[in-house]
């Protein structure tokens, strides 16, 4: 049997085949289908249209519905969409519906999925959101799909996919304290372009990757879509398996999968991360890379820390480390990705203060767990750029209009860089605030 990459092996297994190769179109079985309030109603519509009004989903235990996009808004249509999810989950007896306004409410789906034990090595996870690729950090095949594909999966548990060739990115060396996974992935996207991985898998490897915690690995995989990648993936190690086993409440069995020795990669690049520098993506594209040293001093109007990319505990620990004892000079919005992260901000302490208190004392505004202003949303969304202002953000995209106003300018950066810039009101190298 010829050697296969991790991605190829997962896809082969789910196609009930011994071997697949890049370019092949295959039908695969799906382990988990995730949807949310923006694409769920359309998906449900497609499902009902094609399978009938009385149709039942293929497996209620394999469908996860996590409202997260437009939650804390007075927009009637947005609220109506949550009602559609609620009614459907009730009608179909879906055990994994994380309803708004209840104890079960989570927030950003990509962070909620692993917290609630819906991610496992070797599995296939499809979601109606492009950042579904985040879950590749757990050694699974995870990618975003549209409503039609999701409606099809809802009824059949299967879908056709093209097997992608794999690009391999090796991070060697030790990550300096002023860098985060966000800097690494922004550097990669800047190097290969926002179409550099179109129709390809991106596998991350090397000691520098395996030294990262799960949240940082999620940040790496989260942004592969910003290079056009179909999926990002990291082989599971002890860190992964310990995390998965601690969350796998329902003891679902799983089998880790690893790239075969001698597997073919379409591209390989090695980075010495000990020599890298803090990076931003300038407006208006995630591949518009600049070193912080090249743009430092650029005036800003706002800082934003949140989203699936930059709203996890690791992100807030980093931001708090910088902000402690300082005041922000520009409007600064802090939005935990999930309610679990929000609880963490209230309980975890640094220098005797909770992380939340550090942010509030610095003058930042705290929001409720959700996607919030990462993608603009309704005009009353917390932190949304309603004017043509300039923002530095820990989020993932800065195309025109992404965070609201189409003439607003968004710089993407790590939580360290965003926190340092919030204090000075201009783009600032985090090294200036790290003793």
């Amino acid at each position, binding site marked *: 049997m010829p050697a296969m990459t991790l991605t190829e092996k997962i896809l082969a297994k789910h196609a009930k085949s011994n071997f697949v190769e890049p370019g092949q179109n295959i039908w695969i079985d799906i382990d988990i289908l995730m949807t949310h309030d923006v694409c769920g109603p359309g998906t449900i519509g497609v499902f009902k249209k094609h399978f009938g009004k009385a149709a039942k989903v293929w497996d209620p235990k394999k469908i996860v519905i996590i409202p997260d996009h437009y939650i804390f808004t007075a927009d009637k249509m947005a609220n109506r969409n949550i009602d559609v999810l609620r009614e459907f989950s009730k009608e179909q007896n879906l055990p994994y519906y994380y309803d708004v306004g209840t104890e079960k409410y989570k927030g950003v789906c990509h962070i909620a999925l692993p917290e609630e034990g819906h991610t496992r090595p070797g599995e296939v996870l499809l979601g109606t959101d492009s950042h579904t690729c985040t879950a590749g950090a757990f050694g699974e095949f995870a990618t975003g799909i549209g409503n039609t594909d999701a409606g099809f999966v809802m009824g059949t548990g299967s879908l056709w996919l093209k097997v992608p060739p794999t690009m391999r990115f090796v991070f060697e060396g030790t990550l300096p304290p002023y860098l985060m996974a966000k800097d690494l992935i922004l550097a990669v996207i800047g190097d290969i372009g926002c179409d550099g991985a*179109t129709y390809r898998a991106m596998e991350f490897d090397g000691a520098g990757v395996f030294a990262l915690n799960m949240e940082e690995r999620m940040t790496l995989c989260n942004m592969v879509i910003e290079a056009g990648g179909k999926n990002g993936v990291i082989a599971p190690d002890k860190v992964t398996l310990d995390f998965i086993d601690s969350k796998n409440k329902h003891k679902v069995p799983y089998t880790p999968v690893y790239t075969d020795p001698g597997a073919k990669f379409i591209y390989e690049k090695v980075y010495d991360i000990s020599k890298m520098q803090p990076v931003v993506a300038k407006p208006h594209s995630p591949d518009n890379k600049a070193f912080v040293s090249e743009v430092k001093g650029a005036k800003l109007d706002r800082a934003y820390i949140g989203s699936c990319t930059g709203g996890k505990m690791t992100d807030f620990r980093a931001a708090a480390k910088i902000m402690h004892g300082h005041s922000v000079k520009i409007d600064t919005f802090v939005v935990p990705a999930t309610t679990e992260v929000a609880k963490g901000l209230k309980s975890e302490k640094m220098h005797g203060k909770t992380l939340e208190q550090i942010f509030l004392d610095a003058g930042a505004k705290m929001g409720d767990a959700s996607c919030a202003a990462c993608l*603009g949303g309704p005009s009353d969304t917390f932190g949304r750029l309603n004017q043509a202002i300039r923002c530095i953000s820990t989020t993932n995209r800065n195309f025109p209009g992404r965070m609201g106003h189409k003439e607003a300018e968004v710089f993407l950066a790590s939580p360290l860089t965003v926190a340092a810039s919030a204090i000075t009101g201009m783009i600032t190298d985090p090294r200036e605030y790290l003793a």
Partner: protein
Amino acid sequence: MSKIQNEITGKAYVLGDNIDTDQIIPAEYLTFNPAIPEEYKQFGKYALSSVPPAQSGLPKGNIPFHTDDEFVSPYTFIIAGKNFGCGSSREHAPVALDAAGIKVVIAEFYARIFFRNAVNGGYLVPFECTDRLCDKVCTGDELKLDVPNCKLHNLTTKETYPLNPLGEIAPILNAGGIFSYAKQVGMLKS
């Protein structure tokens, strides 16, 4: 959701590279549900509303796709550069173009999820050009697409451009989307 016609004619609307889904349909309009026909129409009204004016309707720019109160644009073709439809997985993007009356997009290449959504939902035909047509076609040019021969005729300039064959997506588009296709190949019971 119709099968592909052999010949499609109409006006071109020209855009540049990396037109992402937020520019095609801004997130604030995603509250409409594309599964409800009256709401489907609304996406046409807001299609391409976040493309910066200077990049709207190339080469000149500042040509609106349609007026603010129109649901359908006067254009049939979108001609674009590289990586059309990058960004989010929102199927509302091909829906918005379809609702606005766009039948065909011709780009150098597409972001994967947009491409899948366009094909599997049967909203529009995504052709790839071999030349950089967004530098050759002007907004407002009259085009005639010869689908079987993969040729695009510019009736305004009298030029003809070759297009890549649709290849493996042709049977799905001809079936009208993934559901009909899956029935044809026996993956779904009729």
